[in-house]
């Protein structure tokens, strides 16, 4: 570090090639660090190192899953309805000449174990911004949840917090919750799963993209101030060797402010409506780092960013902390200079902070300065597209044969009326089957006035067009016990269940999203489960003729060395031309005939 600036700069990095850097602690391997040095032609600055470590992490780069996820595109039937697919913030499906729908499910598992309320709340907040970034008004959420045993101490702490968090954030945003899952299994004891799905609606011609086109255009940061949220790992370690007296322990918990997010939604929709912006990207897990690199990389442009212009909650933040911060409720906008004033006015009217922090440049370099010194000078594509890709070793779990041999048929059956009664009562009382209204009552299902079906129906149905009655149906399903026994068929089964639920409510299934919750990809047995599940889902989609439009992978879900059951959660979106024809699940009237379809 230069004595004069007090922080690591590009020129200083060029002068001190041998300075030791904590890349291992940041999760980068020797060869990955070498690659970074090659790309830059020097050692990275501490800010650059932080950025590469974030963007090349499993979470952002999909380095272990990429080779498998390709099947979704390769095997998928071609569809003219898909306006945006894998690679975008969320998939977009056209459902009429002028209306499109976008939906996606994402995980927020680990934060929800540490701080259940905020973890779950910010999980909802994050997926909502993905939907917003496509140009859509969010219209509903769903929440597939997994907890440990219902009577375990940790579950008593985690479950109420998670449910209150999902409700607290979604209710405050005015998003009806139209379905989800609550499943208990000891395998989730130390690692509950909080997946959140959001669906949004947009006029086809309002579809937004994240590309930072047009050199000279202004880069605007919209929303909350940037604080030290969720940067425990990165910033502490990145500054570790530079700070002799040792960095303070930072919180890794993000706190959400749904009120600001609601204002963010309204201001963005007004900006889209009035065609005031060129591009937009949400700030999610990887904060500014991800938003700046993805927007410039996808357009093949560069940027000049003055990081000092970013509104901070704490003045003492380092540049790498600003770049890595996971503060919630922020969006990045690309704006033509002539429209900047109007954009700032819209933000002000809604009470949201908007700040021009730099501009788009030609030449493909992302240059970030701090107190007049350049602290980052990178080709953005190297962070987004050139991350490592691994074909990890895979092996069928050793216990699988035994598990599969232990068949349900060998279990004793109830033989007498008394036994039957006993079995029935046990089933009815089991946490996985019993009434879930303690959870769902905490969610607003009426807001927006378009909820046609919600809990406890097979799928949620939302009216999109009040004139024509056009609507959509959504279901999310997963069965980890099946997936544990047979991940290939388990994933197919989740898809089939979700597909059936949508069909059963009277809609035509159109598209798929998924959240793949697994253990560590470094465990060959987990990797095998993952590969099988992806293969199963891709084959299932090909057989049913509907595409995967997006999703999310969550690895490293385990309690100690014990991985969770493989838990692919599948969401299916359907369209219904007139919601008046929806089919609720209750029996309709007295003399209705009951028919059993199938075997």
């Amino acid at each position, binding site marked *: 570090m230069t004595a004069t600036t007090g922080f690591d700069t590009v020129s200083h990095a060029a002068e001190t090639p041998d300075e030791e850097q904590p890349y291992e602690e940041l999760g980068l391997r020797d060869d990955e660090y070498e690659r970074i040095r090659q790309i830059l032609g020097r050692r990275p600055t501490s800010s650059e190192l932080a950025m590469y470590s974030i963007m090349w992490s499993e979470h952002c780069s999909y380095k272990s899953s990429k080779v498998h996820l390709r099947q979704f595109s390769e095997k998928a039937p071609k569809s003219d309805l898909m306006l945006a697919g894998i690679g975008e913030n969320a998939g977009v499906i056209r459902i009429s000449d002028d209306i499109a729908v976008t939906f996606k499910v994402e995980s927020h598992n680990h934060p929800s174990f540490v701080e259940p309320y905020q973890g779950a709340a910010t999980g909802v907040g994050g997926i909502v911004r993905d939907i917003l970034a496509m140009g859509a008004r969010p219209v509903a959420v769903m929440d597939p949840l997994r907890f440990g045993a219902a009577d375990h101490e940790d579950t008593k702490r985690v479950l109420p917090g998670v449910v209150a968090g999902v409700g607290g954030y979604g209710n405050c945003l005015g998003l009806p919750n139209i379905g989800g899952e609550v499943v208990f299994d000891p395998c989730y004891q130390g690692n509950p799963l909080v997946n959140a799905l959001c669906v949004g609606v947009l006029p086809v011609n309002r579809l937004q993209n994240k590309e930072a086109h047009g050199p000279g255009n202004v880069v605007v940061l919209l929303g909350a101030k940037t604080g030290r949220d969720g940067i425990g790992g990165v910033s502490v370690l990145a500054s570790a060797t530079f700070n002799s007296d040792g960095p303070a322990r930072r919180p890794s*918990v993000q706190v959400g402010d749904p009120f600001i997010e609601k204002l963010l939604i309204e201001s963005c929709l007004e900006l889209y409506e009035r065609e005031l912006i060129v591009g937009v990207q949400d700030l999610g897990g990887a904060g500014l780092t991800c938003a700046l690199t993805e927007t410039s990389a996808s357009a093949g442009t560069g940027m000049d960013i003055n990081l000092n212009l970013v509104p901070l909650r704490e003045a003492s933040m380092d540049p790498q902390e600003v770049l890595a911060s996971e503060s*919630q409720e922020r969006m990045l906008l690309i704006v033509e200079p002539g429209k900047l004033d109007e954009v700032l006015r819209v933000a002000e009217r809604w009470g949201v902070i908007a700040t021009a922090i730099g501009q788009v440049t030609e030449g493909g370099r992302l240059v970030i300065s701090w107190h007049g010194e350049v602290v980052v000078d990178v080709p953005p594509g190297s962070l987004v597209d050139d991350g490592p890709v691994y074909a990890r070793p895979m092996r069928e779990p050793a216990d699988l044969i035994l598990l599969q041999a232990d068949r349900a048929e060998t279990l004793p059956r109830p033989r007498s009326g008394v036994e039957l009664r006993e079995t029935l009562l046990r089933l009815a009382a089991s946490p996985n089957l019993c009434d879930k209204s303690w959870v769902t009552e905490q969610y607003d299902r009426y807001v927006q006035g378009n909820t046609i079906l919600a809990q406890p129906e097979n799928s949620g149905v939302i009216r999109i067009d009040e004139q024509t009655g056009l609507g959509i149906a959504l279901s999310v399903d997963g069965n980890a016990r099946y997936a544990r026994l047979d991940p290939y068929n388990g994933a197919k089964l989740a898809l089939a269940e979700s597909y059936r639920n949508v069909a059963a409510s009277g809609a035509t299934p159109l598209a798929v999203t998924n959240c793949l919750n697994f253990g560590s990809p470094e465990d060959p047995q987990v990797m095998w489960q993952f590969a099988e599940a992806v293969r199963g889902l891709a084959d299932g989609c090909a057989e049913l003729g509907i595409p995967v439009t997006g999703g999310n992978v969550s690895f490293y879900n385990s309690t100690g060395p014990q991985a969770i059951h493989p838990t692919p959660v599948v969401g299916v979106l359907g369209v219904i031309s007139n919601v008046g024809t929806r089919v609720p699940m209750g029996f309709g009237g007295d003399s209705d005939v009951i028919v059993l379809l199938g075997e």
Partner: protein
Amino acid sequence: MARVVVDVMLKPEILDPQGQAVANALPRLGVADVASVRIGKRIEIEFAGAADLDRAREIADKLLANPVIEDFTLRVEETPAEGEGQ
């Protein structure tokens, strides 16, 4: 009867949406010189017998504060005689 007061505040680096919303509302009330507002909890624990500070600390730690995002301080407070006080 003895009272222990526990003050629970969000850690300084944690976002305080409530405090921020209140601070933003003040100019509309004609108040301009407030730099920031933080909102936390004040919890009064009334002991049947003597005030037990260790007990109270344990309660605060386990039940009242979330150590991931909050700090707390606690102190014994004289209980004002009935009818007194503001």
